[in-house]
C-alpha cells in the first residue's frame, strides 16, 4: 500500500535578496505574478493535513518576501501541520518575528554561508552576514526551536571548526552542516565548490569531535558529499515515498530538482487535488518502487535502502534519468564522478577563490529578471 507523504516542502516564492552560488532553486525560476495566492496555499495546507502530512517546510527563494507569511503559518497550523521556516533572515525584524511566532511558527532554520563575513557575503552575493548574527540573538529570545544551517564546500570547509564555534556562541538547538549537492546553480559552479578528499576526511573528524563535546547542548546533523561516498544517498527518502515539493506556481514535484528531467509533466494544485497528484499522477509514479530500476540496482541488496540514488543526478551526469546514480561505485557510469574528483585532486581547477572576483555564476532574483 502506498504510504502517506510525511512532509510538504513549499517554495512559496522564488524571490530572494540572496544570490547563493549553490541555490537549490531551478535555473528557470517562477516569477512573482505566477505565485499561488494566500487562499490557494491555505487550501493546499488543508489538503496536505488530510493526506497525512505532518511537517510543513516553508522555503523559497526567501519566504519572508511573501507579505502574507503570517497568514500562511496560521493557515498551516489550523490544518494541523508542524510549521518550519527555512530562511536567510534578511528582512526579518523583531516585530515580524513576534508575529510569525504568534501565528504558530514552531521551528526556524537560519542559513549562514560561512563564519567569515567577507567570504559569507561573497557566496551569498549580498551583505547579509552581520545581520544574521544579530538576528540569531533575537531568535533565541523566542520560544521556538532554532536550527542554524550552513552549506559547506571547498571554499569554507577549512573554516569548519570556526563555523561550529560561531554556532555554539549563537546557541541554536541544532546545527545542520550540509555539503553542497550538485544540481542547478551548484552544478554550474562545481569547479569552485567541490571539496578535496582531504577536506572531506578532515571535516568528518572535526564534526565527530564537536558532536562529542556538544552532546546535550547542540545537536549536529552532518550531510557528507555524495561524490565521495561509496553508495548513493536515499534521495528524498525515495521518489514519491515520503515527500512532496510545491513550487511557487503550484506545480508538485517529488524533489527540488526534478524540473530538469526531460519528458516529465508535473501536475498543479490549481488543477488537481494534492491527494490525486500523490497517488495517481504520472510524475509521482514514474520512479516509484523498483520496476524502473536498471542493473546493478535491480538485483542489489541496497535497493530498498537507497532506492537507486538520485534521478536528477543520474540525468545531469549521464543524460539518462533511469540510470543508476553515478556516485554509486557500482554504477557503470561512475567514471564521470571519478573524473570530476580527479580534476580537483590534480589541481586542474582553482583551489580557492582567486583574489580577483571569481567566475561565480550567481542566482538572480526572478523579480528583477527581464523577460
Amino acid at each position, binding site marked *: 500500500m502506498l504510504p502517506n507523504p510525511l512532509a510538504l516542502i513549499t517554495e512559496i516564492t522564488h524571490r530572494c535578496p540572496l544570490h547563493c552560488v549553490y541555490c537549490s532553486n531551478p535555473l528557470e525560476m517562477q516569477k512573482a505574478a505566477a505565485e499561488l495566492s494566500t487562499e490557494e496555499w491555505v487550501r493546499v495546507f488543508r489538503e496536505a493535513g488530510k493526506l*497525512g502530512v*505532518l*511537517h510543513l517546510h516553508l522555503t523559497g527563494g526567501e519566504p519572508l518576501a511573501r507579505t502574507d507569511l503570517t497568514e500562511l503559518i496560521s493557515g498551516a497550523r489550523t490544518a*494541523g501541520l*508542524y510549521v*518550519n521556516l527555512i530562511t536567510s533572515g534578511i528582512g526579518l525584524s523583531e516585530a515580524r518575528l513576534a508575529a510569525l511566532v504568534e501565528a504558530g511558527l*514552531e*521551528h526556524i532554520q537560519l542559513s549562514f554561508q560561512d563564519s567569515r563575513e567577507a567570504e559569507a557575503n561573497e557566496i551569498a552575493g549580498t551583505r547579509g552576514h552581520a545581520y544574521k548574527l544579530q538576528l540569531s540573538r533575537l531568535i533565541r529570545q523566542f*520560544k*521556538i*526551536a*532554532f*536550527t542554524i544551517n550552513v552549506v559547506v564546500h571547498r571554499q569554507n570547509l577549512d573554516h569548519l571548526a570556526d563555523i561550529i564555534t560561531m554556532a555554539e556562541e549563537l546557541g541554536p*538547538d*541544532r546545527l545542520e552542516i550540509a555539503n553542497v549537492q550538485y544540481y542547478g546553480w551548484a552544478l554550474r559552479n562545481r569547479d569552485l565548490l567541490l571539496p578535496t578528499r582531504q577536506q572531506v576526511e578532515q571535516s568528518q573528524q572535526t564534526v565527530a569531535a564537536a558532536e562529542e563535546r556538544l*552532546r*546535550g547542548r547542540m*545537536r549536529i*546533523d552532518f550531510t557528507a558529499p555524495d561524490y565521495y561516498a561509496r553508495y548513493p544517498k536515499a534521495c528524498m527518502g525515495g521518489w514519491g515515498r515520503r515527500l512532496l515539493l510545491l513550487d511557487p506556481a503550484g506545480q508538485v514535484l517529488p524533489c527540488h530538482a526534478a524540473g530538469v528531467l526531460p519528458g516529465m509533466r508535473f501536475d498543479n494544485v490549481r488543477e488537481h487535488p494534492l491527494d490525486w497528484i500523490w497517488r495517481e499522477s504520472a510524475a509521482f509514479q514514474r520512479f516509484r518502487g523498483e520496476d524502473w530500476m536498471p542493473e546493478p540496482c535491480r538485483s542489489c541488496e541496497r535497493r530498498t535502502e537507497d532506492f537507486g540514488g538520485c534521478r536528477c543526478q543520474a540525468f545531469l551526469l549521464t543524460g539518462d534519468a533511469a540510470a543508476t546514480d553515478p556516485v554509486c561505485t557500482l554504477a557503470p557510469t561512475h567514471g564521470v564522478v571519478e573524473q570530476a574528483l580527479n580534476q580537483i585532486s590534480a589541481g586542474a581547477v582553482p583551489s580557492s577563490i582567486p583574489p580577483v572576483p571569481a567566475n561565480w555564476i550567481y542566482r538572480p532574483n526572478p523579480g528583477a529578471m527581464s523577460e
Partner: protein
Amino acid sequence: MPAPDPNSKPRLAAGCRWAEANGSERMLMFPEGALRLQGTGREILERCDGQRSVQQIVDEMQAQYKTGESGRIEQEVSKFLESLQQKRIVDF
C-alpha cells in the same frame, strides 16, 4: 553526559509538542520528525511538564509498576530522558 539531576524538572523543549494526528493516535512532534510512543516511554514523556521533578516521575512510575525493581526504573527513566535531551526534545 551526566545523568539528569533527580531534582530537575524536565519539560518539552521549544518547538516540541503533542499532536493528535488523524483523529486518535497521539504523537510527539519535533523539528525533524514525530515519535509514536507507547507504553512507558509515553508515560514518562507525558509527565515531562516542567512541574514534576525527575524523582517524582520515577516515584510515579514505581507506584504504577509495582513489580519493577526500584533501581531499574530509576535507571530507565534517566536513560530515556538523557536520550531525549540529546535529540533536543526534552530540556531540564
